[in-house]
């Protein structure tokens, strides 16, 4: 009991004087937007290790992945969070698409089955998030219904959202189109793969939880 009280007092004063916050930060978005690449970049920057495997075949991340206790700093501000990388949310999953990318039928069907479960899990986890980074591929049409549904549901749950327009290193990318699609949100253009504008992303995360 005394230990518990000591713990509470310690954490209270830690929060008070160090401006330190602890939250659950989710990465959401459609498949192949670069969520895991971004998760890896964040983990590499602050923990020195990666988080998950990336692939050009969609639905590589089929299970929720969590990295605990990531501490990021910017000036006097400090933020501690658990990073939750979620499977891409989609309205369709076709095993034949995986076969076109070179998988055998059995593997393709297995991947499709796991991917459907991953989407369901990602949706179930929405309620557990304190704030969310929605990772969109800036080379693709931002008006897709999946994007609108994810962001609309986060808004309905009062969960703060930061939109990331990823892949700005590619010529086809168009951040303005993403900004035009979601004018009420902050949109940060980054390249998770090349590390471009990652500092702006961290500033955005601090603003999100401020």
């Amino acid at each position, binding site marked *: 009991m005394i230990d518990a009280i000591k713990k509470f007092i310690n954490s209270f004063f830690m929060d008070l004087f160090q401006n330190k916050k602890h939250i659950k930060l989710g990465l959401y978005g459609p498949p192949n937007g670069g969520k895991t690449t971004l998760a890896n970049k964040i983990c590499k920057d602050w923990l020195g290790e990666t988080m998950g495997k990336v692939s050009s075949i969609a639905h590589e991340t089929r299970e929720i992945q969590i990295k605990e206790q990531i501490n990021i700093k910017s000036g006097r501000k400090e933020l501690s969070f658990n990073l939750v990388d979620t499977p891409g949310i989609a309205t369709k999953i076709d095993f034949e698409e995986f076969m076109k990318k070179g998988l055998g039928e059995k593997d393709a069907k297995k991947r499709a089955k796991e991917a459907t*479960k991953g989407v369901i899990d990602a949706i179930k986890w929405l309620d557990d998030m304190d704030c969310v980074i929605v990772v969109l591929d800036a080379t693709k049409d931002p*008006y897709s219904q999946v994007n609108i549904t994810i962001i609309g549901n986060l808004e309905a749950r009062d969960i703060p959202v930061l939109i990331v327009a990823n892949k700005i290193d590619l010529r086809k990318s168009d951040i303005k189109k993403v900004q035009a699609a979601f004018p009420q949100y902050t949109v940060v253009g980054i390249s998770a793969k090349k590390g471009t504008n990652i500092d702006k992303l961290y500033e955005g995360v601090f603003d999100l939880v401020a």
Partner: protein
Amino acid sequence: MGVTLQFIPYTEIEDLSSLGRIRKLLTIAKNNKIVLLEGRLRKEEEVELIKTTMEEINDDFRGIEMAVIYPGEDTEDMLKKLKFGFINILIGNRLGITILGPASIVKEIKKDPKRIQLVTEDDGTTKVHLKEKQKRNNHSANKAKNSKKRR
């Protein structure tokens, strides 16, 4: 290959539970028809629709393509947003149109805020210009609003 569009007036789903609405739309899509729904689902129903779709995916049913178009979504004008928000409170989610079809037929839905373009399986591109439909939809929504007011 012919494409069948089935129009569902909002009155057909108005009194259904969330699950009932989702079931109705998915059943039509699984019968290889494209649904044109007057109005839209609630936000939480949209996400439930995705979840239920995922639960039902198998070798024959590969999921759905979906798009929603509604007045005010592309405006940054706060007054207009408030106006449409207020109308929504009055008449439910009757404004706008939802289009939803099986992924085996609808390959892609391209949307700019005021126009929806369906790309179908046999690469026939079916352009569905919804502006006219939208106007009629708004007209019926206004009628419903007025009749509610009278009541």
